[in-house]
């Protein structure tokens, strides 16, 4: 505790001061009755800027975008009732992807809780299963403990969202504050078991055909450099989950790119042959493993994760190591022998040559892969790449040359359409020097289209690249492939004029359909600062391939 002079402050003023001390400088949100005392206090802050979003879900995803791009805890705000329920999707999304976030919600006054008061909903109860932890604050004094604790919990161990629900009377309650708590910071990481690390090193040294399997935990723990170092030292072909893309540059000689449902044939086939799988900060998600019993059928497993409940959850590990992956890799590295592993690398090289990722149209910017490549050709690695959810997301995951951790913002676990635009805005505000590209689809973009207004108001450097197939493309693809081509409710009959919509919101626009020189037009649009909406029509019969049918084994890929 720091000694200061005694001040009389409201609960709201206490929260604002604690957020300032925490280093928070920007909060997206929407005011409403039950959080107005807090907004009144926030209006007096000289340090914190408020970003007025057009939907609370937008606020939640803007906080996520900032947190994903920086790795730091971000905050969002909503009022009680519908404000809080509108946040839920963004909170659940943060839980599944382990994103550090603190959501602050207003609640009806304590005396009215449980009476079905106006805009009352059980925010605490609703958020139990989708937060790492949550609080319903009982007094202004408690805030001095709860707010730093919320930040500590969000950032510590496996990161995640924390919700703080503050009744209106608590926001207004005046207390005397003479000492301020230290800001909440990430707890020191637990010491990993040295014997297990030694055994893991021995297994790596003995393995003939090992594969390194990187997950989002590598990005969260800042272990990308150690992962690449381990791969290089022990000659480990490396696969990445959707969440880990960027941890190893995709064009690194050892990279096999993304594994799983839409991984390249060579990637899934190499996993089929491996005799040791080294899982680092990955959780064996069904989109990555396919049918679990058939995943890496010949492999022993080393599993390193900060969350002990992930060990043995899906696959029993031969060596399970609970620990921070950066720390564990740091201890593992000196015990792992340099190994050229020529036979295995040559076998993987053969697989890469014989069944690489097929990217038809890569040189034609009027195809999905070609458009993604054309965008990448205009940018360097400092750019941030966000996506929505669907075909475009998978195409970008396959084809964009991601080379940097925190470069890639995508909704992995929850798979939330509507994630992309607000996440991109949040990232662009947190890192204004970067260009942020949001690839989206015509289905996804409409799910948070209102945030075009927020982006224009803030003048963020966000480039939306809309891949418009007038369909819910991944649904259309699954109905085509697995439901006897019975296309139902996946084709839009009415398609809005997205360029007019974007113009109406105050965005610059570019229609690649009518551009005579699409690559030049794209380069020009991406080089101008400010929000720009780029529209490109694509054929709805384009498919994401290869594809593993849901529930099937990864070796049984269709197409590609």
């Amino acid at each position, binding site marked *: 505790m720091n000694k200061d002079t005694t001040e009389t402050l409201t609960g709201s003023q206490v929260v604002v001061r604690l957020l300032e001390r925490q280093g928070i400088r920007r909060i997206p949100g929407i005011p409403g009755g039950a959080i107005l005392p807090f907004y009144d206090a926030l209006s007096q802050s000289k340090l914190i800027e408020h970003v007025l979003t057009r939907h609370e879900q937008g606020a939640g995803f803007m906080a996520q975008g900032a947190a994903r791009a920086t790795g730091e805890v971000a905050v969002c705000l909503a009022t009680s009732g519908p404000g809080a329920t509108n946040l839920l999707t963004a909170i659940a999304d943060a839980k599944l992807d382990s994103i550090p976030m603190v959501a602050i919600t207003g609640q009806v006054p304590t005396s009215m809780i449980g009476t079905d008061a106006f805009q009352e909903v059980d925010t605490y*109860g609703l958020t139990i*299963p989708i937060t790492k932890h949550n609080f319903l604050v009982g007094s202004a004094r408690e805030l001095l403990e709860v707010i730093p604790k919320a930040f500590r*919990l969000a950032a510590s161990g496996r990161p995640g969202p924390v919700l703080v629900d503050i009744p209106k009377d608590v926001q207004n309650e005046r207390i005397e504050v003479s000492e301020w708590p230290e800001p909440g910071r990430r707890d020191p990481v637990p010491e990993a078991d040295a014997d297990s690390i030694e055994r893991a090193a021995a297994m790596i040294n003995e393995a003939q055909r090992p594969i390194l399997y990187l997950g989002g935990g590598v990005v969260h723990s800042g272990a990308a450099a150690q992962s690449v170092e381990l791969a290089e030292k022990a000659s480990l072909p490396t696969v990445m989950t959707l969440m880990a893309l960027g941890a190893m540059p995709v064009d690194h000689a050892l990279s096999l790119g993304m594994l799983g449902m839409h991984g390249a044939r060579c990637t899934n086939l190499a996993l089929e042959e491996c005799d040791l799988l080294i899982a680092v900060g990955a959780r064996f998600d069904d989109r990555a493993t396919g049918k679990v019993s058939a995943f890496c059928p010949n492999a022993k497993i080393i599993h390193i994760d900060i969350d*002990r*409940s992930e060990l043995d959850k899906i696959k029993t590990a031969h060596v399970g190591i609970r620990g921070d992956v950066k720390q564990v890799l740091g201890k593992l590295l000196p015990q792992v022998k340099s190994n050229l592993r020529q036979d295995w690398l040559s076998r993987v090289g053969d697989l890469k040559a014989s069944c690489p990722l097929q990217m038809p149209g890569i040189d034609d910017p009027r195809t999905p892969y070609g458009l993604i490549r054309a965008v990448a050709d205009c940018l360097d690695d400092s750019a941030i790449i966000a996506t929505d959810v669907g075909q475009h997301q998978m195409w970008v995951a396959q084809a964009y040359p991601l080379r940097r951790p925190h470069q890639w913002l995508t909704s992995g676990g929850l798979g939330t359409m509507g994630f992309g635009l607000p996440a991109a805005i949040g990232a662009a505000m947190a890192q204004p020097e970067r260009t942020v590209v949001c690839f989206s689809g015509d289905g996804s973009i409409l799910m948070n289209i209102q945030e075009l207004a927020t982006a224009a108001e803030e003048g963020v450097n966000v480039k939306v690249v809309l891949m418009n197939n007038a369909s819910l493309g991944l649904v259309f693809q699954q109905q085509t492939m697995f439901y006897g081509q019975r296309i139902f409710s996946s084709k839009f009959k009415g398609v809005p004029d997205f360029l007019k919509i974007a113009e109406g919101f105050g965005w610059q626009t570019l229609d690649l359909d009518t551009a005579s020189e699409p690559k030049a037009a794209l380069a020009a649009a991406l080089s101008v600062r400010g929000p720009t909406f780029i529209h490109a029509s694509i054929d709805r019969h384009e498919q994401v391939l290869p594809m593993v049918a849901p529930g099937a084994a990864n070796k049984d890929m269709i197409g590609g």
Partner: protein
Amino acid sequence: MNSITKTNHEPGQVQTVLELAVNNHAGVMSHIVGLFSRRAYNVEGILCMPVGNGKTSRIWLTVNEDARLEQMIRQIEKLEDVLDVHRHGAGHEVFERVGEFFR
């Protein structure tokens, strides 16, 4: 009703008693039973009383043993308000004595 719940009352069913030390405030019980209910894992018996000065409580749970139990215990241990988890065998005295009130 959660129709996925398999409540196995067959004679051979093995039960486990879990003893939890938790912070005593509204919501803690919800956090714990929520872990079970969202996995359609039935909690057969619950006892909860404050201990000492009332800042903490002790919760006793009886659950049917199945393959998910180890994962359940790890999930319980992750909860911020859970201070400690102990696993006892079936037929712990605490439920046998309280059983008198259920006859």
